[in-house]
């Protein structure tokens, strides 16, 4: 697999994940720190704030690594998708096996102009999803994959 050119999701995906993390991590840390600080002592509150900040940073680091782990590569006959840091997965999906392609975008994805491309084959276990692509890239990829799929389509 060394000759394969891997492509990554857009950096917007990392920004979107980071935003979600901050939206959850900062208020939670603040609330916990204030409650601990008011109910107990001020130093305890400061410690809670520090723990919260470190936890947020650690989760952020994991998210960053997870974002970096995503990749896809278009080969001559199949699409490769890799993901995961703890459990590493790699899927190989031949173009001719694609039944249909979904492009979806949730609210936060839309804020950053992102979309997820999901490939469906006749096998339910096939897990082929590329998140965090720029909208335009996602649409290009979708059309490209659809054309390749059509050209190579095979019956079940």
């Amino acid at each position, binding site marked *: *697999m060394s000759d394969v050119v891997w492509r990554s999701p857009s950096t917007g995906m990392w920004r979107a994940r980071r935003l979600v993390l901050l939206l959850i991590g900062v208020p939670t840390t603040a609330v916990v720190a204030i409650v601990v600080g008011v109910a107990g002592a001020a130093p305890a509150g400061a410690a809670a704030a520090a723990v919260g900040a470190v936890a947020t940073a650690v989760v952020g680091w994991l998210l960053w690594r997870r974002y970096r782990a995503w990749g896809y590569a278009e080969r001559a*006959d*199949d699409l490769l998708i890799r993901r995961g840091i*703890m*459990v*590493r*997965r*790699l*899927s*190989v*999906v*031949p173009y*001719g*096996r694609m039944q249909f392609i979904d492009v979806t975008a949730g609210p936060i994805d839309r804020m950053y102009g992102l979309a997820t491309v999901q490939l469906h*084959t*006749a*096998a*339910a*276990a*096939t*897990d*082929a999803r590329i998140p965090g692509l720029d909208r335009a890239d996602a649409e290009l990829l979708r059309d490209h994959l659809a054309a390749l799929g059509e050209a190579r389509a*095979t019956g*079940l």
Partner: protein
Amino acid sequence: MTGPEPIGQVTDSWSRVHPLSPVVRAGRAVVGLLTIAGVNSASQHQPPWDALGLAVVAIVAGVVYWRVTRWRIQGGELQIDTGLLRRQQIRVPLTQIQGVDLVRPLVARMFGVAEVRVVLASHGAAPARLAYIAEERAVSVRARLLAIAHGLDADVPAPPERPIIAVPPSRIIAAGLASARFGFGIVFLVSGIVVGIAAPQVIAPAFTTFFLLLALTLVATGRQVSAEWDFRVAEAPDGLRLESGLLQHRAETVPYGRIQAVRWVEPLLWRPFGWVRLEFDVARQRSAERGDRQSAATTKALFPVGSREEARWLLARVLPGATGELPVSCGVPAPALLRIPLARRYARMQHDATYLSCSTGRVRPSVVIMPLAKIQSVRWVQGPWSRKLNLASVYVDTAGHRYTGSAAFRGVDEAQQLVATLPGLARDARRAARA
């Protein structure tokens, strides 16, 4: 009873399902209700209005369904319109069908009607079925559907079948009695008796529990025996016919080349008899598999029980060139002992240019044979623990959902090799299959 209609009428004009189908659809419920009603009225000396009411409601619903449902075969499609409030128009392109089943539950057999069910690959599609039509007509409809599916003229008569294998009911019964499930039943029975003798003060609860468990295993065994009763395999030019059933009779037709995988099983308790079992997998939607309440379920056996030679012969018929042999080498390196201590012995996989066969199992192996041409995707999975041990798993998916080809916990080099070569081999196999 309408009897067989001229073929010309079947094609282009809309037809209804058989007028008796409301009765058959409601059949089991109504029989049950009337039995309860009979018992109740005998004991209480008053007419059982509630049960009768429910039976009437069931029949009225059936009559409404009958009134609003119509079907025809036209333009290479099976068209079914149904639904009272929410109209539903089902169009089945016949080139896409994975198989055609003819199912006759007991009540349907009494009235001489059958359900025609078209097996489709798509997930979540409405099940395409005609429930119920007259038996002779169902057979001719099946022939037409399959003829169109194979690109022939719709009026080509049903090709002759050639029986190739029949499994005698006695062997089905013996296999059921030697099944692990029935074995558990016996264990429950014995433990019930032992507990009863050793500790008579707990006799009542112990007996209730163990006999309940025994009854459950008996029912499950009985179901399987009844479903696989009188199992016959026949070859027809339009596909393989699988027929069986004691109470509910079903005849599946699986067109050649639609089989996604075959599993070869040798249960421990069958070992003295040298029996094996073959199961198969086609691309069929889950709803057809489960069989919703109005639709009858089918079995998954290709060959329920029989000798190794017969199984090998049949396997070579459906997947030419496949042997069903246990892959020879133990492909799992020593560190995998930590991950799969009991299953390591039979975790094997090998492939040639046409088939992939993988075995799994702890006590006895079961082998899954997949044509490489049917591969939908190849997946590599490596968890943290496996990474430490320098292992990785490779999974191979087909459009059937029962079996996944797995080469679990291989050495990283071998797994990489598999992921690198299998897609290419599958592509070549697909090309060869098309040519």
